[in-house]
């Protein structure tokens, strides 16, 4: 947990879903402009149960079901937001966001600019993303770099229950549109990339102690999960845990940085770290070409070129659709992380 956030009072042990649910609850309690909606969100409480209980508590006008209309859901959210509401829309899987992309890109992300700040779109789109759940090509994608490429929308990706709540509250209260990607592989526990061993539940992890009250984690502040001097590991979402586990297993003194938000990006923390370690590995599940790792790599190279001891490494998904079978051959797990770390640790003279 990072410093500088407000006093949090009593805490309750929560998994990621419960923390996300609690963030919406806190915001709905404080501000009746906040409404949550989406497919199976109201009556059923969300296919992942993220909105469970909210309709009972706040009624059908504040927590409600929509038809299967991604374009309509996001479009309606833009209109509500322009009028001053704080819509929190769920797109059931990030893979279904594409029918609504036009509303997000052409409307939500552009309203402030084209009205010269007169109208804005303070909406939040929550959407589960990422693989490792045998979802195949339509339930596993990581499309985050599509959104960082669109100017005018923020992109947030939590990796723990504590962060999920604080970041979601910040997203809902943010004056601009935010896409909030929820790494569904770690909803119930911090998956470490070893698919053949059971995942520890969140209750065994300190970041499951989630304050009951209101707190916000500022967008644009990374979390240095582990300090180290040998190499900087940049990661987010599920890959934070996969990376941290790989670093422990290899016994390497890496600095592991959980970016938490891709846009705004905490370049200050990244730059300071890479200047210290001289080496950098970027890790994400998304496909490699034009992935967010490409942007990170360019930025690190621009800011830290004279400090780099080795070429920057990227550990990513392959440039293919997400497969139905061979999921673990596809997933960028511990083996690919080890190989990348070994390569980046080779010294410039070529000696390991």
């Amino acid at each position: 947990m990072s410093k500088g956030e407000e006093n949090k009072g009593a805490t309750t042990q929560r998994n990621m879903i419960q923390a996300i649910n609690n963030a919406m609850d806190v915001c709905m309690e404080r501000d009746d402009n906040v409404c949550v909606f989406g497919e199976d969100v109201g009556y059923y409480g969300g296919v992942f149960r993220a909105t469970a209980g909210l309709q009972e508590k706040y009624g059908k006008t504040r927590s409600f079901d929509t038809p299967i209309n991604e374009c309509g859901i996001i479009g309606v959210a833009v209109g509500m937001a322009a009028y001053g509401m704080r819509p929190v829309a769920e797109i059931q899987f990030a893979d279904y966001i594409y029918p609504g992309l036009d509303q997000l890109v052409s409307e939500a992300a552009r309203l402030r600019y084209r009205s010269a700040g007169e109208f804005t779109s303070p909406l939040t789109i929550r959407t589960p993303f990422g693989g490792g759940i045998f979802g195949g090509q339509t339930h596993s994608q990581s499309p985050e770099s599509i959104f960082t490429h669109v100017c005018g929308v923020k992109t947030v990706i939590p990796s723990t229950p504590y962060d999920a709540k604080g970041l979601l509250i910040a997203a809902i209260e943010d004056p601009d549109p935010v896409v909030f990607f929820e790494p569904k592989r770690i909803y119930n526990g911090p998956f470490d990339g070893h698919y053949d061993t059971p995942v520890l539940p969140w209750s065994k992890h300190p970041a499951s102690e989630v304050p009951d009250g209101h707190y916000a984690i500022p967008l644009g502040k990374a979390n240095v999960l582990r300090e180290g001097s040998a190499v900087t590991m940049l990661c987010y979402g599920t890959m934070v845990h996969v990376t941290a586990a790989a670093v422990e297993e290899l016994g390497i003194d890496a600095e592991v940085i959980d970016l938490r938000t891709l846009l705004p990006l905490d370049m200050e923390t990244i730059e300071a770290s890479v200047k210290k370690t001289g080496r950098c590995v970027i890790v994400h599940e998304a496909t490699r070409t034009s992935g967010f790792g490409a942007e990170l790599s360019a930025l690190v190279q621009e800011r830290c070129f004279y400090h780099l001891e080795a070429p920057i490494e990227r550990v990513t998904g392959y440039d293919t659709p997400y497969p139905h079978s061979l999921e673990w051959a596809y997933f960028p797990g511990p083996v690919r992380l080890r190989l990348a770390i070994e390569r980046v640790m080779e010294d410039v003279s070529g000696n390991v």
Partner: protein
Amino acid sequence: MAKAPASPKRAPRKSPAKKPPAKSAARKSAAPAAPNRERPAEPDRYTASKDELLEYYRQMLLIRRFEEKAGQLYGLGLIGGFCHLYIGQEAVAVGLQSALDNDKDSVITGYRDHGHMLAYGLDPKVIMAELTGRAAGIAQGKGGSMHMFSVEKRFYGGHGIVGAQVPLGSGLAFAHKYRGDGGVCLAYFGDGAANQGQVYEAFNMAELWKLPIIFVIENNQYAMGTSVNRSSAEDQLYRRGESFRIPGLQINGMDVLEVRGAAEVALDWVRSGKGPILLELKTYRYRGHSMSDPAKYRSREEVQSVREKSDPIEAIKKELEAAGVSAEDMKATDKEIKAIVAEAADFAESSPEPHPDELYTDVLVEQY
């Protein structure tokens, strides 16, 4: 229970009280809603021969037993991820597809696609092996439960994105017309999918260009946990084509003979160049939306009462009985089908996974 379209069941909504228009204004009151264009004939329940009845029975039973087995394999962890069973809806795919001309007509549907594949007589082994993600699967393990295809049968897939297949269907119909091959496209989608905006873009184009397409709404009353009346302003879905001038028929989708009868009318309409038609098949899924759905949004009693009152397989058994088929013969068929399904399951469990190199094939023609 086929109904003629445009017979409004509900009283028209009252419009807010308005001041009567000034007397002098030239009055043009709207003419009463009368059909100003041709309508399809009222479908009859199909009269099937004994052989046809036996064939429908076999096919529906194969789908049911196959799906039951798929559910078991899922429970054992042999099928991963998403798996949507067709149990309860068998009469729809069998009734409609039995009327098609397999040398000309094309079919496309969503992710609940095992039944449509089986109704074609495709080998259950390669379908089951696709579910388990094996190289011998019909899509080489690349598609999985939701994404299956067959060039041979002109089956253009299983599609995981709700509603996306409907415009593709209009495209297939466009190609049929363009080529002049006499083929018709059958495009299935669910009651939930019927709310996607792109469906209506597809409707408009299809009618505008008089495309040979039968739009089929499989109304099983639920889209995941959302019932039709909680998501649809017009819940009589057969009327959804009206504003595009596409006629609609509402059909009992639990009776294979009613479905087949409707297929005849729809095919006549479309093949004679009159453009698209919309069929709403009222049906029901007995199982959860997918294997991971505890189905808490409806009562056990609701499911039980549909099963008891209108199960499509029980219904055809009665027809068979009336046609002189003995209970023993029906049991023998069931046994035979169970053996076919068991064999498919063994095949799907024992055949190898694809080679990891296959991850990279079929992304584009060349590899980069």
